């Protein structure tokens, strides 16, 4: 039925897990009161009248972190097969990984020196 054995459980469990929030939300829908008033639905801003919205142009300081994250996340994905097969690959694989990581470390040092990792 499935080429990869054991993965039918993943699909099944995904369905079972998706039922949890669905059931929780629908059970609450049946039980909870629903009084609607305009004040009730205003945005919370420490009890003040909200000034403007939050959907504005906004300086996302984490942007650089997100870019660096993508690089290193892909790096770890590349390293996983290497780590699993390492016992069969020996010294050469070690040297290769060393070069691979060295290039990325240079990238990290560059980002660091350029101030991409600074919170300012």
């Amino acid at each position, binding site marked *: 039925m499935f080429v*990869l054995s*054991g*993965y*039918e*459980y*993943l699909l*099944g*469990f*995904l369905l*079972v*897990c998706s039922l*949890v*929030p669905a059931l*929780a*939300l629908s*059970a*609450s*829908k049946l*039980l*909870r*009161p*629903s009084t609607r008033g*305009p004040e*009730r*639905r205003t*945005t*919370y*801003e*420490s009890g003040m009248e*909200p000034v403007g*919205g*939050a*959907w504005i142009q*906004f300086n*996302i300081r*984490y942007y650089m*972190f*997100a870019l*660096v*994250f993508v690089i*290193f*996340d892909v790096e*770890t994905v590349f*390293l*996983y097969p290497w*780590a*699993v*097969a*390492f*016992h069969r690959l*020996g*010294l050469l694989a*070690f040297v290769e*990984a060393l070069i691979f*990581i060295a290039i990325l*470390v240079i990238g*990290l040092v560059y980002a*660091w020196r350029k101030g991409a*990792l600074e*919170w300012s």
Partner: protein
Amino acid sequence: MNQGIDLQGSFVQALIDLGIPAGSAKALWLPLPMVLMLIAATVSIFVVVWLERKISAAAQQRIGPEYAGPLGTLQAVADGMKLVFKEDIIPAKSDPLLFTLGPVIVVIPVLLSFLIVPFGQNLVITDIGVGIFLWIALSSIAPIGLLMAGYSSNNKYSLLGGLRAAAQSISYEIPMALAVLAVVMMSNSLSTIDIVQQQSGHGVIGWNIIRQPVGFLIFWIAALAECERLPFDLPEAEEELVAGYQTEYTGMKFGLFYVGSYVNLVLSALLVAILYLGGWDFPIPIEMLANWLGVSETTPWLQIIMASLGVMMTLFKAYLLVFIAILMRWTVPRVRIDQLLDFGWKFLLPVSLVNLLLTAGLKLALPFAFGG
């Protein structure tokens, strides 16, 4: 290595003996471990909430919950019931679809991760090849839900909280994945069962915490950051951001965030126990004990006792870590956002890279001690 008891095999065989075709017998088995695991996860929320409140109270010399049930054990149930009955408020200026999807996307991957948590040799929903890697992948879905919740609320506190949450989890995900890599390298497999197998048989000395002390610390710190536990609870820092991305949430949608964060804490503790503390393995080698008592390891009653004790052992290790996490909440002051990011990128990331390369080097030099 003994095989342990095979519940699935016995169950399916018993049904086949009753005259049910093999295909339907297997289909009948399929939902059982899943439902059991979900029930266990739900119960663990109540246990952890109660522990959190009682231990917090003890740390502050209060009594804590005491009226709902004996010693206040039903307090979490009462809280949960309250959330179900609460009105669901969707802010007028928000995006209703994303607002509802946010908590759902946060909670599903956390529950789904229990797929690969083993409690014994065969006591796991499924032992798939990618194992721990599935969890790494699933744990990176949660930030999407957090960003969704933060952005869709159209609230300044929520937006800041959501952005902080996303930045925090992506910053600590890399050191965590690299720490897991070192463990994977030692066991030559991504399967959680194999990872525990590789540690078992020698008692405490065989556990990864001895060979990977740095990795253990990195993983634990990163796990606390991913769970937004107190030294790193910036996304919902009450003093600064009201409740972060949860500010506009009420009722069951808030409850889903709550469930997600507590299940995530239990899950992280379980994974630390599995990756570094030998999972269901005993501190004293069981083979040695069995030989000393003069019973064979394959005796059925011994197998059953060992399997049950193994489940207890896993839970005991996990709850010990939960206890440490709760104590840390009242011991360690909250970090600032720049300190948090600096710590993740400028300290944990280089250290975890060095740890990985050191493990690889040691594996080449001393293959017998590092899983050859």
